[in-house]
């Protein structure tokens, strides 16, 4: 316990430096060369007529902010899901939560094209809840359906189903262009208003997650034990699912679907800091933020001067990791 406390403390202490570093790199380097002095001026003495200043202010800064937030949101959402379901494969992308969001957003674009941003976020959250609801509902219909592997299979398949329907609808209404922009991550065109709006929504999710951290730790020991210790398991479940919905919904509304962050980061975090979710949740947040910002920087250089979708990079890390998890744990139940 002592040792893992120390680890989590040093992660949290070091994180501002690391995150500042990756953010700085992200702002300094991009397709267009902009020197550090201009960057500094863009921040301190903004000149609206200067194109470089515009790029920094409306392009790179919102972008890095969005990536940091989304990384943190998804990692925490994944950690909460893994803890509460005691399922080592639980994560927003594998359990249909991401797809639910993107699906509802598609419907919104098609049927109510001019919704204000905050309603978009709310709808996206609704979609998260819908996705999770369908997948877990289906899982509980099937014998053994809530086992990690079955749930992952159901989640993926339902995700594919939702995205097929969304594609079909988008095609019918001839808005596939707009829709695919939502479905594929769009970190390079973050909407400033959306970014600002997403902060309070995401914060609610983070706070809910932190508040239930202790209860999640106990739940991760097993439902029977948790009940035996006098925990209101149902209430814990509802609060933590609410946190997941807030976090994932906001993340998808902001940049679209990103896979594997919510799966990989919680595992790495747990490996580093142990099993206490009071440490896991904040650490997962900073590690997730750092990881996604790093992927974003790399995505500009993998295929320079063209940008690679960030999802390709997270998949590059995520797929081998996923295979490793499957190889190691198979069908066993364990978070």
């Amino acid at each position: 316990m002592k040792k893992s406390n120390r680890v989590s403390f040093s992660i949290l202490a070091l994180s501002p430096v690391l995150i500042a570093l990756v953010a700085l790199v992200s702002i300094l380097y991009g397709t267009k060369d902009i020197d550090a002095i201009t960057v500094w001026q863009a921040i301190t003495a903004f000149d609206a007529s200067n194109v470089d200043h515009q790029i920094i202010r409306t392009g790179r800064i919102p972008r890095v902010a969005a990536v940091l937030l989304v990384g943190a949101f998804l990692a925490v959402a994944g950690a909460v899901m893994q803890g509460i379901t005691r399922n080592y494969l639980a994560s927003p992308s594998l359990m249909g939560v991401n797809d639910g969001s993107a699906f509802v957003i598609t419907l919104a674009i098609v049927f109510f094209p001019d919704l204000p941003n905050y309603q978009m976020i709310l709808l996206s959250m609704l979609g998260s809840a819908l996705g999770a609801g369908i997948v877990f509902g289906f899982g509980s219909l099937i014998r053994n359906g809530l086992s990690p592997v079955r749930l992952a299979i159901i989640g993926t398949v339902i995700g594919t189903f939702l995205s097929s329907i969304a594609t079909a609808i988008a095609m019918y209404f001839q808005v596939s262009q707009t829709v695919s922009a939502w479905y594929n991550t769009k970190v390079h065109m973050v909407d400033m208003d959306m970014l600002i709006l997403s902060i309070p929504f995401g914060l609610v999710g983070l706070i809910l997650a932190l508040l239930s951290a202790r209860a999640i730790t106990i739940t991760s020991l097993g439902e029977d034990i948790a009940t035996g210790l006098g925990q209101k398991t149902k209430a814990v479940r509802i609060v933590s699912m609410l946190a997941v919905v807030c976090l994932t919904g906001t993340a998808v509304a902001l940049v679209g679907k990103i896979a594997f962050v919510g799966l990989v980061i919680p595992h790495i975090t747990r490996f580093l800091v142990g099993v206490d979710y009071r440490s896991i949740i904040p650490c997962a947040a900073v590690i997730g933020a750092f990881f996604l910002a790093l992927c974003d920087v790399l995505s500009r250089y993998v295929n320079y001067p063209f940008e690679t979708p960030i999802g390709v990079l997270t998949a590059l890390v995520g797929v081998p990791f996923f295979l490793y998890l499957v190889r190691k744990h198979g069908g066993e139940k364990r978070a």
Partner: protein
Amino acid sequence: MHKKASNVFLMTMLMLLLLILGASYLHITNGVFDMSVTDIIKTLLRLETNSNFDLVIFEFRLPRIVIAALVGIGLGMAGVVLQGITRNGLADPGILGINAGAGAAVVIFMFFFQLRLMTADMSSWMSILMMPLFGFIGGTIAAILIFSFAMKNGHLDMQRLILTGIAINSGFGALSLFLSLKMSAQDFESAAIWMAGSIYNANWIFALTMLPWLLILGIYVYRKSYLLDYFQLEEDSITSLGIAVEKEKMKLLLASVGLVSACVSVSGSIGFIGLMAPHIAKQLVGIQHRYVMPVSALIGAGLLILADFIGKTVFAPSELAVGIVVSIIGIPYFLYLLVKSKA
């Protein structure tokens, strides 16, 4: 007893052929350019030549139907083989990631050999003929990856198999996306359409490309279909009967990967046909694979022609990729099977 089963089989085949004819009829008469039955019959029988009708029928609709049928046959047969050798009713080339592997290889091929060369002119024939071969290599790599990850103590672990498939799918999907983004805009467009699983830019060359694969491997797999009966027993019993289990499974697996790759190289990734067709076939003719195999092939063909018909008419004038239509139909079926199967 044998008499009865074979009668059922013949009747089923006949009904399915009629169904395919019906679906083809729907497909050929409907479209952006509506034609009457008499027009079509006249054109087909060369009683009357109208260059417009000729173009629409011979260059657009007929090759498309033929390719839909061929792809359906290939996927239907491959599905029977995969479900047979894995003893898992949920195995499907799309779910297992073989589609994605073959797809990534074909994207690599397109990337290096430039898709835009692939028009109907003779000089590019060689490169078109190479596509299934590339697909086969990619599909085989995917299959080897999947099976080596899913092996546990020398036996296939079914849950791992599907999970590995999910991972392989996203991995190869990301690779394809990455490569296709490096292509020129025009190539990217074609690659994107192709990857979604579509057959609407079908032409006779594509049909000819996959035909030899389908013929050779199809016949091979059909001739080996009796083995799949034995594979319904557990491993020890099969070995006891003197079947070289691992060797035969490997051969059948490679053959089915070949079938899938030929299909994927022409139509892109189309999932769930390989899942649905064998199940429906078994409902119709029982569990003897020499009956199941051809029936599943015809069901695959029929399903795909119908799905393509739906894709091209429901949202006309815009077309919905047939792969998406199949997913929308196939996934509920998959879930239904999942609910039905005992844990």
